[in-house]
Each structure stands twice: as C-alpha cells, then as structure tokens.
C-alpha cells in the first residue's frame, strides 16, 4: 500500500468523507437514527420513565369512625401521593387488592383512638402488594411520612403524644425535591448516545465487505487509517447533532438543571461518542456481515447500557463481580459524568478520572480496529 504526501492524504480523506456523507443523505435511515431517534426516545423516556409514585390508589378501612381516625384519613386525602378509596370492611378491601384495583390497604383498627395515646398496640395495619418491591417501599415510606406529619400537627396543638429522643434531619444535596426525572434524563442521554453510536456505524463496514466495495478500495492508494477516518467523521458530526438535541430537550423541555459548563459537556460527549462509534466500527469489522453485525449490536450495546450503566439500577447496589463488569461498559462512565454535570456541576474529581477512562477506551478500540482491519485484508 502506498500513502503519498500529507496534502494528498487530506485530499483523499476529504473525497472519502464526501462519498460517505452522500451515502448518508441518500439513505434516510442514518439521518433518522441521528435526529428522529433521540427526539422520539427522549419524549417517550422523559415522559414515560418515572420512579415517583403519585396518586397511588389505596384502600382505606376504618373499623370504627372516631374523630382521631377521621383526622388521619383527612390528612391522607390531601396528600399528593395517595388516592384513598373507602371500603366497608377488610374482606372487600382484600378482594380489591387481589384484583389489583389498589396497591395497598390501610387498616385503622377498632382501637385506633386509644392506642395512639398509649402506644401499646399497632394502631394501623398496612398490607401492600409486594410484587413490585420499589413501589411497595415507596408506599410504606409515604404512609410513615403522612403518619409522622399528622402526629407532629397534633403535638403542635399541645397534645404531646410521643417523645422521640433522637430526631432525624435529612439534607438531600443536588436534588432536594428528589425528582427521579432529574437523575433519569442524564442517564437516558447516555443510553441514547450508545444506541446512536452503535446503530450508525455497526453496519457501514460490514456492508462494504458484503458488496465487495471494500476490496476495490484497498486496491487504490487509500490506507486503512484513511478509510476508518472517513467512516468516522460524518457519523461523528451526526452523532454530535443528536447529542445537542438531547441536551436541549433535557434542559428546556424536561427542566433538568444544567449546573456544569458547556465546555465540559462538549468535551466529554465527544469522547464518549468516539467510543460508541468505535464500538460500532469494531462490531462491523469483526462480523463482516450485516446480519450478524445487527444481531451483535442489539445484544451488546443497548441492554448492557440500559442495565449495567447505573442509569436506573445503582452500581453501588450490585455485587462485586458485577461492579467489576460495569467497568468495561463505557456508558457507565458517561452516566456518572452526565449525572454530575447536570445536577452537581463540573467536579474535577468525577469528570477527570471518568474522561480519562473514556479516552483509553476510544484509543483501545481504534488500535484494535486498525489491527483487525489489517488482518482482514490478508
């Protein structure tokens, strides 16, 4: 293979980039991936994904109506978390829970009025449907909260009911209202970028292998490096457009605060996009066949980015060997970066190590890419 001077190189790369761009414009599916996919996914995700339960339907059973129990139930009615539905006795409420008409049962026992004064018996029984453990725990938390508010108000009115020796004062940094959307949207952007990167490039080299056009290219003075650059540049531009769209939508439509700087966001996104496109190109080169490349892209990009990146499931909760595995998922570094840039700001201790990791990933992928491409020609 010959390569020639620097200026010839530039000319060749420019010509190849031009060819690749024409191909993108002619097949609308690439443009669709970069522009329509992020808009659609962010809309669906942004509105659809929420871990905050609101207006949970809950069955309320009062064994006897006393002023105390009525007061407590009234507090429930004003809570944004619950929609109380009243059932005459526990049996009908149990039937409703089994039908899944309600998420839980709040049962104020006969002795409600007395036992809140003496604290000798459980005054309130709560039954929840435990299948969805997260919602069940939220219902429990919300109910305890409603209960404590009610006790506090009674105490303020001069009727000391309970003495808590130690009180708890929680300060939630970065997201004081604990809006789950604020932490999900930055993660979503990382998942979407993984998808875009892999979708855009996983097919492009495999397609040329299948059609035999790559072999024709090899017989020209073009080098492998130049071919890879020309495959990379147009998709990088497309991907950054998708990224820009996602950030604009996240910040303006979903009102996620953006506390870091644009520069950090740009630099880290460019690093991550390079990694994601690199993964797609490696898949494409290894499989040499669009069918297999497509299958690999589905299996190895989206699902790991969805489950192992810390986007929904916190990496802290995972057992050690899974945490080790998350280190080979590039999306996990980008999720960490984005959550900090959006919610906390440019924190060097978070941004720098994770960016360095992304840099090494992309360098590694491109070295591998050049190695295997060379081998493939022989």
């Amino acid at each position: 293979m010959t390569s020639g001077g620097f200026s010839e190189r530039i000319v060749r790369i420019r010509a190849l980039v031009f060819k690749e761009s024409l191909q993108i414009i002619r097949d609308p599916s690439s443009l669709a991936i970069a522009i329509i996919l992020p808009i659609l996914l962010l809309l669906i995700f942004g509105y659809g994904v929420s871990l905050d339960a609101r207006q949970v339907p809950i069955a309320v059973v009062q064994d006897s109506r006393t002023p105390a129990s009525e007061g407590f139930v009234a507090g429930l009615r004003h809570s944004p978390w619950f929609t109380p539905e009243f059932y005459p006795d526990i049996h009908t409420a149990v039937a409703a829970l089994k039908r899944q008409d309600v998420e839980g049962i709040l049962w104020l026992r006969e002795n409600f009025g007395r036992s809140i004064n003496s604290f000798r018996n459980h005054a309130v029984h709560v039954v929840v449907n435990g299948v969805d453990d997260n919602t069940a725990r939220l219902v429990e938390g919300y109910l305890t909260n409603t209960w404590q508010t009610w006790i506090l108000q009674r105490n303020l009115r001069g009727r000391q009911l309970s003495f808590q020796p130690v009180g708890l004062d929680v300060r939630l940094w970065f997201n004081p209202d604990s809006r789950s959307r604020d932490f999900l949207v930055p993660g979503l952007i990382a998942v979407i970028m993984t998808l875009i990167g892999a979708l855009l490039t996983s097919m492009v080299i495999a397609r040329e292998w299948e059609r035999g056009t790559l072999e024709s290219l090899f017989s020209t003075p073009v080098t492998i490096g130049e071919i890879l650059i020309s495959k990379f540049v147009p998709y990088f531009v497309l991907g950054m457009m998708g990224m820009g769209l996602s950030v604009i939508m996240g910040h303006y439509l979903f009102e996620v605060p953006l506390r870091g700087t644009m520069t950090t966001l740009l630099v880290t996104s460019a690093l991550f996009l390079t990694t994601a496109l690199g993964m797609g190109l490696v898949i494409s080169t290894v499989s040499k066949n669009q069918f297999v490349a497509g299958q690999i892209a589905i299996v190895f990009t989206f699902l790991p980015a969805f489950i192992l990146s810390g986007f929904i499931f916190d990496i802290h909760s995972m057992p050690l060997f899974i945490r080790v595995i998350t280190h080979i998922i590039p999306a996990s570094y980008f999720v960490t970066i984005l959550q900090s840039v959006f919610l906390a700001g440019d924190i060097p201790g978070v941004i720098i190590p994770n960016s360095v990791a992304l840099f090494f990933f992309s360098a590694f992928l491109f070295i591998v890419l050049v190695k295997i491409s060379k081998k493939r020609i022989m």
Partner: protein
Amino acid sequence: MKYLLIRILRLAQKEFLALLRDKKSRMVLIVPPLVQLIVFSYAATFDLNHISYAVWNEDSGEYSRQLLARFSGSTNFQLLRSVDSEKEVKALIDNRKVLLVVHLRSTFSRDLLRGTPGTVEAIVDGRQSNTAMILMGYVQTIVQGYNDEFASLHGVTPPIAPIELRAWYNPNLKSRWFIVPGIVGLLTLVVSLLVTALSVAREREDGTFDQLLVTPLAPIEIILGKIIPGFVIGFAESTAIVLVATLLFHVPLRGTLLALYLGIFLFTLSGLGVGLMISSLVSTQQQGLLGAFLFLVPAIILSGFATPIANMPQLIQDLTLLNPLRYFLVILREVFLQGAGVFLLLPEYGALAGIGLLSLILAGHFFRKRIG
C-alpha cells in the same frame, strides 16, 4: 395437505440453517442471552448493600458512640472514614466517595441527657434520587431502633411502631423477585426479534426473496417457515432462562407450568410477528436494524419492567396497551409470584394472541405488496 406440510418444513429447515450455519450468528443467539440473564439478574436490584458513608461527629459523649455503633454494625453500611469539617463533607460527596454523611453536633449527648431531643443530620447525595430515598429509609430504621433502645434503657415504655406493614407475595420485598421474571420477558423478546427482524431484509438484499415468491409457496407458508425456527429457539432459551431463574436465583414459581408456557408461546408468537412485520416493511438490513431498535427500546422502557406503568402519564399508559411485553410481564409476575392459573390470565393471553396474529397478517400483506 401432506405436501403443504413438507414444503413448510423444508422452508423451516432452510431458515434454521441460515440462522445457525454462521458460527458468529450461532454464538450471538445462544450465549449472550444466558450470560445476560445471570449478569443482569445480579445487577438489576434496588436493594442497597455496603453503602459507603462517612461520620462527622462533633460530640464526645456516650450517646453518639452508641448511635454510630448501630451504623457500623449494619451490613447495609460501610464506614469509609471520619471527617471533621464541612469542607471535607463536601469533597467526599461531590466526588462520589460516599453517599451519606452522618453528622452529630456537639450538643447531641448533652441534649439527650437534659431530656430534650437530639438531632442526627443525614447528608445524602441526591444525584440518584431513588437510591437516596431507599437510603433514607435505612437511616430512619436505624434511628428508630436506637430510639426504642434509648427509651427502654431510661424506663420509658418504648412506643410500638404505629404502623405494621405486611407485603404480600414478596414478604421481604426482594427486588430480585420482581426483576428476574422481567428479565425472562426481556430476553425472550430480544431473541425473537433477532431471529426475524433482519431475515426478510437480508433475502431482499440478496435477491433470494423474489425467488421465494415465485415458488408455489403461499405467503402464509413463507411466514410459517420463517417463524418455526424462532419458536424452537425461543422455547429452548425460555426454558433455560426459567430454569436459571428458579434454580439459581430461587425465585418461587407458584403458578402452573401450563400457564407459563401458554404465555411464552403467545408472547414468542407476537415477538416473531412484530419482527417479521418490521423485516417485510424495510428494504435494507440497516433499516431493519433501526426498525428493530425503534420497537425494542420503547417496548422495554414502557413495559413496566423497571418503572411502573401506573407512574406514566395517561397518554403513554394508553400507548402501552399495544406493547406485547407489557402483557407478558403481567403473566410472568402473576405466574411466578402470585401463583395465577390460566383462567385468571385470559385477557393477557387474548391481547398477546391478537397482537401476534395481526402483525403476522400485516407481514404477509407487505410481502405481496412489495412485488407489485
């Protein structure tokens, strides 16, 4: 009739070979779903363990030591280090070294001795709001436990926790029981899409699809030939996945196998149907891959797999009625955890059968339309 059967079986055999002949394709279909089941099942949990935390104790009294001993004794928490200034707290939380800092002011023990309430301050990293909420629950439990001990030591009858909670079907509220059946659905969907989504598009690109259409095979026969291998692979993998879920992760399987397999059958049917429909609509494999993702990603997100459908806005809740995975997750969770039988799940079976048949009819329709 006999010839018809032979023709379909021949075509199915050819599809099987096309799928499994390529070594890479064979690997992709078989190994990753099983590996992912195991990895994801361990990964996908909302329970927290070994949360690293720091202590900022300005109090030298005995009570603060007692309370902090309860944190260090809990398996949920792991002490990273002690700090003694606000600046250090900020550095630890900003850089994600700890999720929680327990802060006790210098007056803590004195207040308690005087008989006034002492205050514990919990500083929590809210970047992952769900983790923060769960973490707060754990801290609350520890403080509550200390309050009870304190009260009984000082001759006060400890107040009984006013609320008694019982969780049905999943008494210890284990995330894994909720998530693992969901992963069974997720992977079954991925496998059935992998088998079909690119298959017609590939034949279109190679030109072999036109040849297939000029044979005496009717579209319905072509469809059957294309989905039979999917059924075989889907069934084999679902069985393996269910075995792993019950034997390795000890998720109880309380319902009947009949109810489970009827669900798997109808869900595989609808997954294959949607895949084939996508494939028959597009003209290149790249478009096929895009179509597969455009279906797969929303189908997973809007299925109730990780976030409840009840939390979604009404419009999106209505949209999920078109999502086969939504129905399959109901079937899986009811059969695994709630011990449901066939009769109770009839509406879900009906919906899956409807989606499956409709998408197959549409696929057959688009086959023919493309030639004209």
